[in-house]
């Protein structure tokens, strides 16, 4: 079996800055339990994202890799969002060269709580990856007085 293609369970890897709005409130364990087909990897900062990390996720069978960072003007380490953007652009080009779909990589800047969920939903829908309903997560959000994403 060649990794990255002959997978039986499509999934999305979310490489997520730990400071991105919303994701720090929920915590990775809750998020990973609430969503089937999504694997969250929390990072110290978006600046630690590099093509090797994205490609290894695809090699391990991910249908897509979503990079979630803070907006550029809110990055506390200044370069996080920019680094993630560069990594996404470069890796998309490399994937295209070897004959894989560049759409498998997406970068979003998380400006509001809940943006990450919209982003995962949209990405899953575009990639045609089944993602379990997020009701439990949404309830948790609402209980904390945060804006609902639906």
């Amino acid at each position: 079996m060649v990794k990255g293609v002959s997978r039986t369970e499509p999934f999305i890897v979310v490489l997520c800055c730990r400071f991105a709005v919303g994701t720090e409130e929920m915590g990775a364990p809750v998020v990973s339990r609430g969503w089937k087909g999504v694997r969250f990897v929390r990072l110290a900062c978006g600046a630690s994202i590099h093509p090797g990390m994205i490609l290894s996720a695809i090699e391990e069978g991910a249908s897509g890799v979503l990079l979630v960072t803070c907006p550029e003007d809110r990055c506390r380490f200044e370069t996080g969002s920019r680094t993630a953007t560069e990594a996404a652009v470069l890796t998309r080009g490399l994937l295209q060269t070897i004959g894989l779909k560049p759409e498998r990589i997406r970068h979003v800047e998380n400006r509001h709580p809940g943006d990450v969920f919209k982003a995962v939903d949209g990405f899953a829908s575009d990639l045609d990856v089944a993602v379990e309903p997020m009701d439990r997560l949404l309830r948790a959000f609402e209980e904390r007085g945060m804006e609902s994403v639906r």
Partner: protein
Amino acid sequence: MEEDISYILKQTGALACLDCGKCTALCPVSRYGTFSPRLAVTLLAGGVEPEDGGIWDCLTCDRCNLECPSDVHFSDLVGKVRRAVGKGEAQRIPYAHGGALHSLMRLASDPAAVPDRLSWIPDDARIAEKGDVLYFVGCLPLYDSFFEDLGVRPLDTARSTLRLLNALDITPVVLPDERCCGHDLLWAGDEDAFRRLAEQNLEAIRRSGASTVVFSCAEGYRTFWYDVAERFGPLDFHCLHLSEFLTTQASKPAFRAIHKKVTYHDPCRLGRLADVYEAPRTALRAVPGLELLEMPRSREKAACCGTSLWAACGAISRVLQRERLQEAADTGADVLVTTCPKCRIHFACAASGEGSEDVPRIPTKDLAEILAEALPQKER
């Protein structure tokens, strides 16, 4: 795996090691680190875990093999041991660049990935779908994107190669679905992925009807000429490095004069590992006005650029790269010419970034680029 290692030690003649230390004296890594080829042999023979025996420290530059009185082929031994280890669990490969390039090569070995790699071809270049001569581009498109910040522009080598072939009135086949040659995966021990790549490339070459495959890349040439042929041979086509191809042509490109001094760096894969020393020099001498100056360590004794297969790149690599650039600059050459995109990338890397202020800034060019520069204006 222990049986595998014992067999490899016998097969490569390593058990005949006299412990004389010539290899260690010649090894570029041994000069600055604790690694020693003869010690690695002793450790492997003693049953030490291969990864603790230093198999990832070796550059596989083949420098030690030339002087070994027992004819131990150490690079071959290292390659085989890495492949034996690779058969088992994941290896602790000290990847450079986060392993991105190895991941790409493994992903590219997937038959479901259908590359379309012709976007770099200039509008005025002539290429064919089928024909007698095929140009194997290799990983240049990947390196061009990945190392854009270094300013090396590896795809210029491919464009120059096409111009040279077109100037000879040859319309080469360039495969839209060509894949990586697998060199790095093979030397990293991933025999399976290497075979997948080779099988698909061989099939694509067969479909093109080519009887000669031309390589501008030293690694691609060595990989097909030796490693692919060893596993799948005899091949249905001749493998020729661009420099060899040019020297075998009855008609030569009409080069205009270029008044420059150049020095030629023999890449390990084209020199010691494929025995091609003279052809690149002959090609350079064919350009009027080009003065070829040799570095003290050239041909069989050429220094390695300090890193191989996008792994084990560190402080020692940087020292070796600085030394080589200094050696090139000391010849008084204006340009360092080579035939390996990786060597050029490593040299450019050594001369960039923090701490590189004292590294000689000698421009590097691929052989194809400098030859294409010498083509008359209308053919460039």
